[in-house]
C-alpha cells in the first residue's frame, strides 16, 4: 500500500511550514491513493450487483421464454407474478376492502401489509405503466439497493459480497426479489436497520424499523435487535445490566428509536380499526387462509414426515420444514458469532409464522438478510467453494424460475 512506505511526520512540522514539505506531499499522495482505492472499491461494489441484475434478468427471461409463447418484458413480469403477488397488485390498484368483503368472500386483503403496495401505487401515478411492470422494476431497484447496503455489512468482503449479490439478483430464488412481493423491500429495510445499528445510529435504525414493520408483520421484531445493540453499547461503556433501563431513559434519542420502531405496524392497525373496525384484522383474517395456531414442532415433524410417494425429490412440506430448520440453525450460528440482535430477529421471524404452519417458509427464510449474508460469508471462505456455489446459483436460477412459473408449492 502507498501509505505503508510513508514515514511519519514530525510533530509540529505541518503548522510551522508554509510550503508543503516532502513528507506532507507524500502523506497527501498517500491519502489520495487510499481515497482512489476506496473509490475504486465502491465502483466495483456498485458494478457487481449491476452485473448480476443483468445476468439474472437474462436467465429468468430465458426460463420464461422456454415455456411462454408470448414475448416481451411485461409478459415476463406477469408470468413471474404468482401467489401473493396477485394480492399486492390488487392492494396497489384498489386498496383494502371494508367488511363485508365485496364478492361475498371471507378472505380480505388485510393480511398483506401496506408499505410496498403503497410505494408501487405512488410510482404508478408518476409513470404510465402497468402495476406489475412498475413493481418489477421497483423490486429490482430495491434488491440492487439492498446489495449496496450489504457491502459495509459484509465488511467489504468481496467474495461474500459477490455471492450475496448473485443470490439476490441471479440466484435460485431471485424471482422472489424481483417480482411484486414484499421480500425486496423487506431485505433492503432489514439491511438498513442493521447497518444503522452497526454505526450506532439508533434514530436511523428506528425509522428503518418503522418502515419494516409496515412492510411485513415480523419487521417489528427488529426493535429487539435495536434494544440488544443498545444494551451491548451500554455494557461496553462499563454499565451494569441493572442500570440499563435508567441509562436508556436518560437518552431521548434511544427512546424515540424504540418507540418509533413499531410505528408502521401501529399506523396500519389504526387504519384497519378505522376501515374494518378491527385493528388486528391482519391477524384475524389468517383464519380465512386456513392458518391455525399450533405446535411449531408438530408442524415441523408433519412437514418432514410428508415423504414423497414417488421419486426422490423432497415434497413441498419437506422443503418448507428443511428451510425452517436451516434458518433456525443459522440463527444459532449468528448467536455463536455474537450477533445476538440479528440472531434473535431471524429466529423470531421464523418461529412466528411457524406457529401457524409451514406455508411460505422457504420464502420467509431466504428473505432474512442477516441469514443470507451469513451463508455468503461461510461459503466464501474457500475460493473453490465460492466458485462452485456461484456457478450453482446461476444455473439453479433457470430451473427454479421454471418451477416458480409452474406453481411449485414449496416456493409459494
Amino acid at each position, binding site marked *: 500500500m502507498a501509505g505503508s512506505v510513508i514515514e511519519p511526520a514530525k510533530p509540529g512540522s505541518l503548522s510551522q511550514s508554509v510550503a508543503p514539505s516532502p513528507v506532507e506531499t507524500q502523506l497527501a499522495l498517500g491519502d489520495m491513493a487510499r481515497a482512489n482505492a476506496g473509490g475504486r472499491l465502491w465502483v466495483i461494489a456498485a458494478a457487481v450487483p449491476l452485473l448480476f441484475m443483468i445476468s439474472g434478468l437474462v436467465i429468468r427471461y430465458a426460463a420464461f421464454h422456454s415455456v411462454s409463447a408470448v414475448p416481451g418484458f411485461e409478459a415476463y413480469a406477469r408470468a413471474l407474478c404468482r401467489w401473493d403477488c396477485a394480492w399486492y397488485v390488487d392492494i396497489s390498484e384498489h386498496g383494502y376492502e371494508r367488511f363485508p368483503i365485496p364478492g361475498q368472500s371471507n378472505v380480505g386483503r388485510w393480511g398483506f401489509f401496506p408499505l410496498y403496495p403503497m410505494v408501487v401505487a405512488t410510482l404508478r401515478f408518476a409513470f404510465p405503466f402497468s402495476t406489475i411492470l412498475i413493481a418489477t422494476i421497483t423490486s429490482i431497484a430495491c434488491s440492487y439497493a439492498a446489495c449496496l447496503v450489504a457491502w459495509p455489512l459484509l465488511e467489504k468482503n468481496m467474495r461474500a459480497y459477490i455471492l450475496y449479490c448473485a443470490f439476490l439478483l441471479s440466484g435460485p430464488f431471485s424471482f422472489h426479489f424481483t417480482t411484486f412481493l414484499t421480500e425486496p423491500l423487506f431485505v433492503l429495510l432489514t439491511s438498513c436497520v442493521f447497518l444503522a445499528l452497526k454505526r450506532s445510529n439508533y434514530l436511523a435504525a428506528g425509522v428503518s424499523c418503522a418502515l419494516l414493520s409496515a412492510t411485513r408483520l415480523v419487521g417489528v421484531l427488529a426493535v429487539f435487535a435495536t434494544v440488544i445493540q443498545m444494551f451491548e453499547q451500554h455494557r461496553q461503556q462499563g454499565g451494569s445490566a441493572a442500570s440499563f433501563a435508567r441509562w436508556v431513559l436518560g*437518552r431521548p434519542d434511544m427512546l424515540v428509536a424504540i*418507540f418509533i420502531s413499531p410505528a408502521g405496524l401501529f399506523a396500519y392497525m389504526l387504519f384497519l*380499526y378505522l376501515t374494518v373496525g378491527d385493528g388486528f384484522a391482519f391477524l384475524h383474517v389468517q383464519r380465512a387462509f386456513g392458518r391455525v395456531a399450533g405446535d411449531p414442532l*408438530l408442524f415441523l415433524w408433519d412437514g418432514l414426515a410428508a415423504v414423497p410417494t414417488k421419486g426422490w425429490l423432497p415434497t413441498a412440506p419437506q422443503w418448507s420444514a428443511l428451510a425452517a430448520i436451516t434458518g433456525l440453525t443459522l440463527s444459532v450460528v449468528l448467536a455463536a458469532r455474537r450477533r445476538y440482535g440479528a440472531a434473535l430477529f431471524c429466529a423470531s421471524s421464523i418461529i412466528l409464522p411457524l406457529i401457524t404452519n409451514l406455508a411460505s417458509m422457504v420464502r420467509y427464510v431466504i428473505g432474512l438478510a442477516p441469514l443470507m449474508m451469513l451463508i455468503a460469508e461461510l461459503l466464501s471462505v474457500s475460493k473453490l467453494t465460492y466458485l462452485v456455489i456461484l456457478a450453482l446459483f446461476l444455473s439453479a436460477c433457470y430451473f427454479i424460475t421454471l418451477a416458480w412459473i409452474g406453481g411449485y408449492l414449496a416456493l409459494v
Partner: protein
Amino acid sequence: MPWSDSLSPYGRAASTGGYGLALVLAVSEIIILALALNPDVNADYRAYYIDRTTTCLNRDAVGSYTPGQTVSFRSDGAKQAAGMMVCGWSGPVADGTHSLGETSRLRLEIPSLRDGLTATLQMSAVIRPPQTTQRVMISVNGVRVHEVTLSSKDPTTISFAIPHAAFANAKVLEVTFDYRDGIPPSPAASKIYKRAIKLVSFRLDAG
C-alpha cells in the same frame, strides 16, 4: 452526541423535544392498542374471525326459489345454486358441491305459504376410514327439523317435513347443515377445510 449530554440551550431543546416525541409515540401506540383490543365489528365478523365459534361466515346471499323446483348442486346448476349458498360450500363440481367446515347454510326466498314444506335432498357422505359415517343435523330458521347419518359415497335421497311453525310467515328460509364428523384434510389443518358431505340436489314441495 446524545441529546441529553448537551448542555447548550439548543441541546436542551432537542432533548426536551426528543422526550416529547417519545411520549407522543408511546401514548399513541397505547391508544391504538386499546382500540385494537376492543374491535368495533358486527356479530358475524366476531363469530368467524375473532371468537371462531363458526366456520361459516354469514353473508347477504339470498336465492330466489319456487317450491316444486329441483335445484342441482352439480356444475350444471351452478348459477341458481350459487345464489342460495351463504357459506360453508366449495364450488360445484360434476357430481355435486362439497361442504366446507363444520356448518353450511342455504338461504332462499320463498312465497307465502299456509302449510309446511317437504324437503327432498340428495347427499353423499365424505368417507375416509376410520370415519365411515357422517351425521348431519338440519335446521330451518334455527329450528332443528331433521338428523341423518350418511354412510355411502353414493348419493342418498333423504326427505323430511318442515313444519309451518319453523318459518311461519317468514319470506326467507334459511337451511343450516351442521356436521359432527367432518374430516380435515390433515390432522393440523384448519376446521374451515373439513369435509362432510356432497350436496347433489335440493327440492322443496308444499304440503
